């Protein structure tokens, strides 16, 4: 055994001691204050569950590295630190790291990490998932395109972090029976300019062809767009998603099976971005 028990007697922290430690740890974490997240009911949403999978992947790698060097588990425990955080209930974050799946359409709910995510993770210092702030379904006459809109606030990213990869993830259930045996094309656009009385100007980012009968997570690469929004937040006008048949006919979101705000928490759309520190940040002297 290469460590001994603490030589000081354990006791509960006094109030001022707790505040001092909180202040120091917040400083290490690079946070100006203690976060107060809203919407406690949404803590079991798709984004936090996906991030927990990434967390498990990262800590598994850290454990293996330590075991190789010391022959012991992470932090001295025989098999590393616990997989779950505070939310250990079945409805919460009690998860065990799952093997990575490279399937383009993952039917897992909540979303599972893929081999792409593992590669992004290896290069990243930080990963953030973003809550969708706005969602509108726009249904028009048959001449115009049905689409859904999404917007994500990327202004809260800590200084000194550069985007290395970003994904938009949205869940598609099985489409309406009238589209049973056809192939659908799901396309994501970046909104470039908005107009009051006509369709917005958009830029095509990525598209997927899937069977209407298939259900699962769709992942779209929006790295360049996210980078652009981080550098130019005033030009962040969100994303649009549309679903069409192969002959170009636009389908409304509900019939297509695309899950939105009214859907289950574990299938909510979200944006995930991987970052690398672009500069060294120094703590201020206390």
């Amino acid at each position, binding site marked *: 055994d*290469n*460590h*001994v*028990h*603490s*030589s000081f007697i354990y006791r*509960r*922290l006094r109030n001022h001691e*707790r505040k001092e*430690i*909180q202040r120091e*740890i917040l400083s*290490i*974490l690079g946070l100006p204050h*203690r*976060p*107060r*997240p*809203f*919407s*406690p009911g*949404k*803590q079991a949403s798709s*984004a*936090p569950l996906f*991030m*927990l999978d*990434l*967390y498990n992947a*990262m*800590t598994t790698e*850290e454990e293996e590295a*330590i075991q190789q*060097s*010391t022959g012991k588990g*992470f*932090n*001295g*425990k025989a098999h590393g*630190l*616990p997989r*779950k*955080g*505070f*939310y250990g209930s079945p409805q919460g*974050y009690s998860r065990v790291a799952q093997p990575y799946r490279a399937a383009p359409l993952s039917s897992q709910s909540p979303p599972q990490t893929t081999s792409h995510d593992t590669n992004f993770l290896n290069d990243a*210092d*930080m*990963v*953030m*998932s*973003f*809550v969708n702030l706005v969602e509108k379904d726009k249904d028009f006459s048959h001449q115009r395109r049905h689409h859904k809109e999404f917007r994500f*606030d990327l202004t*809260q990213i800590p200084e000194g972090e550069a985007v290395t990869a970003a994904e938009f993830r949205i869940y598609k259930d099985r489409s309406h029976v009238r589209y049973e045996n056809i192939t659908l094309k799901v396309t994501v656009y970046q909104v470039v300019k908005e107009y009051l009385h006509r369709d917005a100007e958009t830029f095509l980012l990525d598209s997927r062809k899937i069977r209407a009968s298939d259900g699962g997570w769709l992942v779209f690469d929006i790295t360049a767009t996210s980078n652009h929004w981080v550098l130019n937040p005033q030009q962040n006008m969100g994303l649009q998603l549309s679903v069409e048949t192969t002959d170009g006919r636009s389908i409304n979101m509900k019939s297509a099976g695309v899950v939105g705000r009214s859907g289950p928490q574990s299938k909510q759309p979200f944006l995930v971005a991987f970052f690398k520190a672009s500069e060294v940040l120094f703590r201020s002297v206390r």
Partner: protein
Amino acid sequence: AAGGKKKNHNRNKSVGQQEASRSAKGGELNTSEQKQACKKHELYVSFRDLGWQDWIIAPEGYAAFYCDGECSFPLNAHMNATNHAIVQTLVHLMFPENVPKPCCAPTKLNAISVLYFDDSSNVILKKYRNMVVRSCGCH
């Protein structure tokens, strides 16, 4: 031959006798010092105890460890002493008032990953380096 901090009251003893008494004491001193030699000790930082369950998703806490112990002559192999520390130990024996003993401090540190919510309920996963003591040493 180093005098150390203790005064030699037996000035009339021959050098050989003095050296013999010192080496005997040195042996006992080495035994007691080895018990308090520079080593890694347990220290656990609990995010739960800090009342942060509502915004830190994982982990509940982490074992940070700390280093404590003597870095005295002779520095054994398990003390992970640098070559410089070995030399400084000897110089401390000669000039204890001028040159301190080497310090027992972390020589290798590991990172931890923390998963947490921000004010907007976005989720952040970040790796923080040099958070956990992996090994202690004299330097």
